[in-house]
């Protein structure tokens, strides 16, 4: 067992410096795409290709035929990128931003989502640290997640 004890001590900590140092690089997630960002102003009249390819029906086009109002429900989105590829006018763009936790389901139904800045994330981490004096144990009840 000396082997593994020495190994473990030699390895040290694997925890990343996020959010003390913000951004994907600090979290080890450089290049990882998250959910798409939407610019409804770029939506072309009469086109519905994005809604047609969206299998979870996260994209809705509502309103009268002159100007369709385009909406993306991030709570339904599975990040498959088909909308980004289908849109002829670039209304959907890929994003690597992931720092946008919200308080309730409803906040995901409307765009735009505001990202936290690194400063905001670090400030929040300080609050957690002060109130819980160390680690925050989040209980995870599994209803069927993949390993």
């Amino acid at each position, binding site marked *: *067992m000396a*082997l*593994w*004890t020495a*190994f*473990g001590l030699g*390895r040290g900590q*694997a925890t990343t410096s996020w959010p003390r140092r913000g951004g994907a690089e600090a979290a*080890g*997630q*450089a*290049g*990882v*795409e998250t959910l798409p960002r939407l610019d409804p102003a770029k939506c072309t009249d009469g086109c519905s290709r994005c809604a047609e*390819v969206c*299998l979870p029906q996260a994209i809705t086009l509502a309103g009268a035929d002159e100007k369709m109002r385009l909406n993306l429900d991030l709570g339904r989105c*599975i*990040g*498959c*990128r*088909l909308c980004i*590829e289908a849109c002829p006018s670039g209304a959907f763009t*890929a994003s*690597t931003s992931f720092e946008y936790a919200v308080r309730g389901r409803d906040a995901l139904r409307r765009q735009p989502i505001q990202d936290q800045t690194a400063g905001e994330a670090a400030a929040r981490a300080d609050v957690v640290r002060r109130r819980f004096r160390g680690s925050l144990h989040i209980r*995870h*009840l*599994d*209803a*069927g*997640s*993949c*390993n």
Partner: protein
Amino acid sequence: MRGADELRLAADALPAAARSLHEGGGKMQMAYAWFPDTGRAEVCYLAAPGAGRPFQLWRVSEAGALPSLSDCWPLLSWYERETHDLCGIEFAGHPEPLPLVLHEGAAPVAPPLSPEYPRAAAVDYSPQPPAIPKVLGPDVQELPWGPVVADVVESSQQIFFYLGEHILHHRPRLFFKHRGMEKRFQGVDPMLGMVLAERVSGVGSASHALAYCQAVEAAAGVQVPPRAAWLRCLLVELERLYNHLHYFGMLAEATTLKVGGAEGKLLEERLKQVNGRLTGSRFLRNLLCPGGLRRDLEIPYDFVRMLSGVQREASDYLDNLERTHSYLDRLLTTGVLPRQIAFDQGATGPVERASDLRRDLRRDHPYAAYDELDFEVPTRTAGDANARAEVRAEEIVASFALVFHLVTRLPEGSVRTDCRPEPGSEGLGWCENPRGALFYALHVGADGRLARVKIKSPSFSNWRVFPYTVHDTNMMDFAINQASFGMTVAGCDR
């Protein structure tokens, strides 16, 4: 169906055909049913007469009950039960005609996969106790463990009949995670279905998408460009790597080697980060499509360096595990799976290769660019947990070698070609997933949309086999043995 030779059989010719396949040294892969427009169900059996020979699809038009083939091919027993539950087909003489996919107390208004089933209607269900044979005897205890269990694991119920430490009989009860994925495919545009395939089993996204896309390409009679074929091999080998490192992390954890468990999972995480940098997706999603890849990949300039670093650490890690007596002691002679049982009950992947069944779809029925690649297919004969681990350890070495070969010799050119399967076309696709043989059998409807997608998952196969290594063993070995199999529930349950 393109991708397989076809045989149309009458129901009463099935037993003879099954015996003849057995005597000829072939293997039965799976069976399923679907509902063509004719109104009458058709039952399909996928047979593999031998390595290097085309698959065979036996097609039987159902009129009343079919004879069960479980006495000749025990592995078909679960497929027949699933086909009964989801398609309402009877199999006369089935040795265990019990519910499998729809639990006791489920009362669908029509067989869920039949066209009469009202779309998006929930199945009426009031929980009943499982219909399992009881083990009688003084002091025998029954323990139904799960489906909600501690830690982050998938939901399944493990039922034990035991006396103290001795397990007399074990039954896994699965399908708590049945999501009706095959039904969800119905009515979908074939060009979008890979999005669903990627989400059948999260850790098999690339291999599921590949088998699906190859089924569509077979139906459309299309070959992908060489660069796409090579990139596809790269993706599924990267998938094999992170899965196998996860496996060792879980196995070490199960033997209470905490640092060993953490290191395995850290190496898995490093590989997922490599995937994220290369493709934008840690789980290698959003790349494959029928016809090739949705976009080209640029290999990062430091990709080989990054991966070499992980390879060296993985190699040291596996060496350290092999020198750890407490870990080896728990694996040697644990959960022995004899060769004949592995064959009869349908074991697949590293599990079958650890029990001296030398089968690998990449070599026996090459797909993508595998016919251009040289690689080892490791096997063992002991069939114990240690053998199952050793097979995967050697597969890690082989996969690293393949990945380096693939990235340094990628052909130039386009990554996508046109692919439009005609209405009424059918195709078979397959892939050697990290857990074993994976098949997608696909039927396109008259409207050009998917009419039926059947998914044969390696975890479905191995969950059936697993209890044979548990009966008559002891409680202490159970979790380690289960970890040594390395199955998912999501792939099995769909």
